[in-house]
């Protein structure tokens, strides 16, 4: 866990660039060089596999314009792939979570003890 965070926060994307503030990816995407964008996009895509679908969501929202709207540039095809894959992963997660939440909410009361043990907070006054 810790190693993952360490990697995510500190690894710089490109050696060619001068070392800057490691948290600079909060900066405006427009001002980054293209290879930096690709590296960021890749980082978010990979990190999403650590059961973090929100990173994929961020990736899709953030890089959608870069991947599909902007005029073509060298790294764009790769960014496109990452954004697409992130989107697919996101969809998969949404489907799984929606199904599970629907099932859980619907059957929690019926499951009795099991339903209670699976719950974090149990609503008051209803089964």
């Amino acid at each position, binding site marked *: 866990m810790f190693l993952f965070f360490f990697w995510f926060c500190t690894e710089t994307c490109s050696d060619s660039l001068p070392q800057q503030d490691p948290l600079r990816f909060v900066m405006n995407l427009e001002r980054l060089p293209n290879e930096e964008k690709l590296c960021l996009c890749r980082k978010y895509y990979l990190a999403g596999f650590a059961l973090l679908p929100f990173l994929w969501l961020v990736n899709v929202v953030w890089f959608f314009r870069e991947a599909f709207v902007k005029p073509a540039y060298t790294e764009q095809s790769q960014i496109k792939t990452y954004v697409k894959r992130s989107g697919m992963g996101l969809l998969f997660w949404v489907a799984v979570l929606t199904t599970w939440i629907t099932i859980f909410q619907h059957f929690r009361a019926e499951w009795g003890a099991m339903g*209670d043990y699976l719950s974090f907070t*149990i609503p*008051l006054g209803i089964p």
Partner: protein
Amino acid sequence: MDLPSNKWIVHLLVCCFVVGVNCNSVDKKIYVKLNYTVSCVRLLNATHQIGCQSSLSGNVGVLHVLESEDNLDWVLSSGPNPPYMVILESPLFTRSVMMKLKSGSSRVAGVAVVAPNTNPAGAFSPHTTCPNENSGVYSETYDPAMANCNKTVWNPLGNGLSYEEFDFPIFSLKDDNDTQVIRQCYLDHNRAVNGSRPRYPLCAMQLYSLMFAVTDTATCMRRNDINLSINPEMVCDPLGDYNVWASTRPLNNTAKGHKMWESAVVAAARLDSRSFFFDIAPGAQSGVSGFVALLAAAHALRDVVQEAPPNRTILYTFFQGETFDYIGSSRMVYDMENNQFAVDLDNIHSVLEVGQVGLRNDSKLWLHTDPVSRRNDSVNKEVEDLIANLRLAATNLSVTPEVPTASQPLPPSSFQRFLRARPIPGVVLEDHQSAFTSRFYESMYDNAEYLNVSYPPNLTPEEQLRFVTESAKALTEVATLVARALYRQAGGAETQLVNINADSQTVTQMLYGFLVRTNNSWFQQLIPSDFMSHLTNRPPNLYVGAVQQSSEPTVLVQFLMANLTGSTVNVTQENCQNQREDENDKESRHMYIYMWVQGAVPPNSTQRQGFCVRSTARLSKAVSPAFDLREFTSKDYSTWTESRWKPISGRIFLVASHELEMLTLGVGVGVLLTSLLLTYVISAKADILFSSGREPTNATY
């Protein structure tokens, strides 16, 4: 310079204060809070939930005062402004009305019952027709012919409302100014004149009584144990409290289990009652009449058991929670079986239980016995002896003991739990031959008025306390009979019987204390000073309640028992409170209970003169064994739990029509959107709009 600025601050503070006050009064202008709100609450057992509840934010409904049962149509179908909050006068609080409201509950927001100031002429019992049907001794295996009240329906007037589940709140209102305000509000705003729609604004009421627990005891006890969340909330608590017990001979309470050479006659009574609403359970006939008679009997026996002790010990027991499947008695029997009590079942010689004895119309007292255990000859002989003793005890008394038909089973009684364990000989004293005499069994009308505990007008509370009522005299006779019978049953000499007489003065004072007000000068003398705050100017609530809250009658009965059967000992306050006679005494605590009571105020003094009372009046746990065994679906023991709830309250206010509400909301949203749009436009065109002002700063930038 200083002076004016100070002035400003003062002005500002005054303004703030005025604003604060205004806020308060706006709330007061909108809402009228109900002062006296007694609610029906949710209880759960192994299989069911009963009682009432509101939604999370309280149920709101337009007030409708129900005038007759035909008028229900307005609430259930024709009225144009559902849901309705139905105000019932008590004659309409019947099963048929309530069940109709329950089935149409989508149009019913709640019910408020106006409790009358005098008892109704008819009968009302919200209890079941066969109380404690499944937890007594008469199961299918014991005798199929007697199970489920097959032979005798004990409470034929019972309508079972207390055991129904309602998904709306039901409150009780006192018939006073509050209720008058509600009625007036209804008349002014909601009353349909000549069948026309009542016009807005309408008078509405909101009732909050959110119950946490749901489904059944197993579910809520499980949820109590799940502590995942950040602030885990308990959802329910087992019903229970303490039994009170005392013995004529001190029993070592530290050494539990069987006592060699000990033989005890159990004299039992029940301490609790209930009604539809949890906060009012006067239980005059169902509880108070019995335990007051037994307390008076114990008092009558105090001296004679010291001077001419009988062979056997008399074990006085006051069971708590009997209304809910015999919580107290089942626990004591369980403790006796498991050597957790001062004696065990082998030590029990026989049982004499005092049931409902407050309403004897024709001086008869009925001796109920169990026909099944009497099929055994030796048990039958013991029972016959006990009946003979009771008859002997009645000589020269105005009470005539009578025996109902031999095939009739026992009425609902704690003795049944002893019989469940083994065939112990015993008799239950009641004022009814078969079905209950009581018209108000386990209802809020089972009060002082119903027992005819009434006083001539213009008496001060002190005079009322001393006034010997006719009911007290009648109950004294019963107490004398019980005392003499117990003495004979314990093996005492027949010649002593004439010396055993219950004191009508004590009985009337106890009736006053338990039925009119606990805060009286006599009770004040008999209790420790730290219990003073519990005394009130109302009769105590006999509902057993959750385990955590100590029940007031239990403690009062313990103090009374201690004072009426114990003796005053010359011990310092410190030693008394440490349960010892002197500094080196380590043994007495096993045998006795010491209480430092505050005593009376002597004339020409203001300081009470406390003293130490030594007695055997102890408490023992009255919590169903099901909760110790964690068998929440138990069929043998009581599984009743009480849900926890958010504060219960109610208020009335005027509501505007739905259209007006929507219009107000619409205008609000419109204003918001317009302002957003305006802001956007202004910020987008800022350079044009504010160009002249901006230019110099732009230049420097």
